[in-house]
């Protein structure tokens, strides 16, 4: 490829013209020695003169190897790029999102409806020339009909582009709405489900009911102002998300974080992870109809929330990390409380095991249900306990260690069965691993400052920055493109939940309706993380 521009920036970056993007990605994907088969993020961009996409690729065998591919088109009226859905399944929803927010259409994507926004939304919010006046998109009190006809643009054998439509459901399908208001969707998610008796035939994912346009809002706020938005994405991993943004900004601005702050951050992250996994366990059990196990999970989580409460006043959203350190120092009895919590939690993990994990009904309802193969997990970008349940070693803490994780001994929990039970057991085991991590740190918290000196107005040098962390759900990433301003030019969050939801139609197909709910619990997605 002669006209490709290859640069060594933060990561190896290749810029190509649209027509070459698909062959290049295909070649990278199929490379024998180092196959870039994991699309970490697909970021739609508006550079003013051009509209384009940044593909951040990685390899499932070596998740620390990364490459960035950029492609862009100058046609702003009808921007067309080639879809990579046939290479990376996770691209499907991401391309639909890019269409809704930037108006870029993708050739050969089989279903080019808008994701997150409604079909008749006027304008493309993430474009720099977007007109945001409320009159254009008034709030309506009229029911919006959901159309089952998806537009698409396909390339035929001769290379001509053909606009066509496709039907999502057959005319005589028995469709029930799981959501947007439903006890088991863990938020405002809408699965339109075609049933054949009780067997799931097809699922259409519809999201965006609580889309807040956070990425758009970020473009007009300074970096410290943006921090609080991260808490409101995956609220169960609030502190870990925030850590990601802090890390990204600190790395870009060259800020050194005091060691004490690092320790506090990691301990809080791990506590946060335990609480996230506990809630996932609880909600999963509740989805299977075990209300008592649900309450048990909540009971233990309460102890962590109390520790958060005493540290910084917040329980769910704790506003602990700030750029350059942490906002609040630990309180006097913090060590004592955490040390008391560790044996208590171990005891309760055993209780979960005795009470629930080996119950015959539980085993029947989890083992062999919702099978996700390793290849699909990689293609859909399903990371976290769910991805590791399919045998994919993808722990960001191991492969791209941030903060203190390269100094800590811990085991990556991997199971290869790929079913609901593997995902479920992974979470419970990761709680134990998190306890071990906390044990290593809790006695060694160094004295000193908790906050580095940071300039009140923070300007990041021009460039593209990406930082990912391991949240309770999987790999959460922050991408910042800066033009040297105090605001980011573009900020994108890589959502682990979006991948988890995008794989639901695949793993729930031909399962019973009850199992669809149970599989949803085992994937453990949080909707605000998708509806950014």
């Amino acid at each position, binding site marked *: 490829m002669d006209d490709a521009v290859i640069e060594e920036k933060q990561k190896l970056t290749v810029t190509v013209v649209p027509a070459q993007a698909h062959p290049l990605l295909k070649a990278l994907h199929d490379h024998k020695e180092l196959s870039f088969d994991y699309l970490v993020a697909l970021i739609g961009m508006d550079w003013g003169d051009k509209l384009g996409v940044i593909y951040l690729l990685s390899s499932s065998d070596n998740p620390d190897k990364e490459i960035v591919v950029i492609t862009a088109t100058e046609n702003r009226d009808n921007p067309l790029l080639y879809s990579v859905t046939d290479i990376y399944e996770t691209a499907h929803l991401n391309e639909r999102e890019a269409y809704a927010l930037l108006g870029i259409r993708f050739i050969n994507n089989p279903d080019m409806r808008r994701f997150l926004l409604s079909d008749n939304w006027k304008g493309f919010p993430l474009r720099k020339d977007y007109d945001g006046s409320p009159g254009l998109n008034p709030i309506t009190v009229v029911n919006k009909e959901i159309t089952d006809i998806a537009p698409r643009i396909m390339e035929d054998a001769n290379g001509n582009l053909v606009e066509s439509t496709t039907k999502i459901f057959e005319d005589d399908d*028995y469709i029930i709405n799981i959501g947007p208001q439903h006890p088991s969707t863990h938020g405002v998610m809408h699965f339109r489900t075609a049933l054949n008796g009780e067997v799931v035939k097809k699922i259409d994912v519809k999201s965006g009911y609580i889309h807040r346009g956070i990425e758009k809002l970020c473009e007009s706020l300074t970096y410290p102002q943006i921090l609080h938005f991260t808490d409101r994405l995956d609220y169960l991993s609030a502190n870990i998300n925030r850590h990601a943004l802090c890390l990204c900004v600190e790395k870009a601005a060259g800020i050194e974080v005091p060691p004490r702050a690092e320790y506090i951050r990691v301990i809080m992250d791990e506590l946060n992870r335990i609480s996230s996994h506990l809630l996932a366990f609880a909600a999963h059990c509740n989805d*299977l*109809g075990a209300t008592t196990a649900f309450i048990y999970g909540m009971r233990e989580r309460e102890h962590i929330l109390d520790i958060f409460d005493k540290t910084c006043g917040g329980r769910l959203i704790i506003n602990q990390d700030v750029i350059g350190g942490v906002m609040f120092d630990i309180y006097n009895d913090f060590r004592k409380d955490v040390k008391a919590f560790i044996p208590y939690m171990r005891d309760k993990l055993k209780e979960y095991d005795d*009470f629930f994990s080996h119950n015959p*009904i539980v085993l029947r309802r989890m083992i062999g249900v919702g099978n996700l193969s390793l290849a699909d997990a990689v293609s859909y970008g399903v990371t976290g306990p769910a991805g590791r349940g399919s045998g994919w070693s993808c722990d960001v803490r191991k492969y791209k260690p941030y903060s203190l994780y390269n100094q800590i001994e811990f085991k990556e929990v991997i199971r290869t069965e790929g079913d609901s039970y593997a995902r479920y057991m992974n979470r419970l085991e990761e709680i134990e691993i998190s306890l071990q991590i906390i044990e290593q740190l809790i006695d060694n918290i160094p004295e000193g400052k908790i906050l580095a000196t940071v300039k009140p107005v923070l300007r990041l040098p021009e460039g593209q920055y990406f930082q990912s962390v391991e949240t309770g759900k999987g790999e959460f990433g922050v991408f910042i493109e800066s033009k040297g301003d105090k605001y980011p030019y573009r900020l994108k969050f890589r959502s682990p939940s979006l991948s988890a939801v995008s794989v639901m139609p695949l793993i729930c197909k031909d399962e*019973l309706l009850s199992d669809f709910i149970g599989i949803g619990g085992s994937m453990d997605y949080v909707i605000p993380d998708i509806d950014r």
Partner: protein
Amino acid sequence: MNYKQPLELNGLLLQLDLFLRGNLPPFWASLIEGLLILIAVLAAYAVIALILIYAERKVTAFFQARLGPNRVGKYGSIQSIADMIKILIKEIIHINRVDRFLFYAAPFFVICASVMAFGAIPFGQGLQAVDFNIGIVYVLAVSSLGIIGVLLAGWSSNNKYSMIGAMRSGAQFISYELSAAFALMTIVVMTGTMQLSEIVENQRYAWNIFNGHIPAIVAFVIYLISGHAETNRGPFDLPEAEGELTAGYHTEYSGMQFGFYYLAEYLNMFIIAAVATTVFLGGWMPIQIKGMDTFNQIMWYIPSYVWFIVKTAILVFVSLWVRWSFPRLRIDLLLNLEWKYLLPINLVNILIMVLTVLAGWTLTDLFPNLFGNG
């Protein structure tokens, strides 16, 4: 042997009967007695439901490391009454595009079936509204009418969740009805009667569950499982699986119509426990040991209805325990359990019981001096 029974109600009832018949023509006396019994049954129905709801909430709370209701009255004791008043004055929301007649009729099928079965239960000595000679068949027959209400609710609601819930319910109820009936028939083989009062009387010295030992215990366990399944309560609560079908067949109901389903659910739990008590655990009969008159007399000081309530309460507790320990079954697992395991076991079990009875291996036959009636 006649024991003193100071707290029994049957003397009082006899006097009332004599008083009415002495002062009124036979027709009017019967009519008034009928009305009194009706009021008594309905009152008992409502009161037991209230107590059960309170008990379930408290027991569940303790299982789940919570406190349960504790604001209305001491220990939240009148919470159920407050809830009852609330549900009585709640608006009934009229749903568009439902089959009106069937929609409004459906709850009555459920509640009527439940009340009819309730009337046949012997609560104590002489405390039984209907005592047919085919009592067990009657209980089975009327309690299975309730499913019509559930199916109608699902069909007439014009709601897909309701429809799936009702279909699940239909499959489940018909399946488990078989097992429950066979389990009871196993005991009928042994007792030789279907009249509930006689069944209780026969268990004076040996409860049926002991008298029939192995086959009776198997039948008891099967009856508890299938009875539990018939009441649509966890882990068999698929028809209303709140995580999947929001509320299943009663999704569209509100106010007292929903209240009927709710009441019937609790009372069915009670009825299942009560029938199990009557058929397997000696009903209202106090524990008695042949030849130990003093002991027997002490046992008789405790009135029969207390015996009945205590035994039933233990079974209800077991039901709650199961409900709050297990996750929900899936429809295929549910049907497998019935058709592949319970039903074949049951059929073999009946044969074993027949052989046991023919061979004279029941306890009353083996040790007539200890357990024989008479």
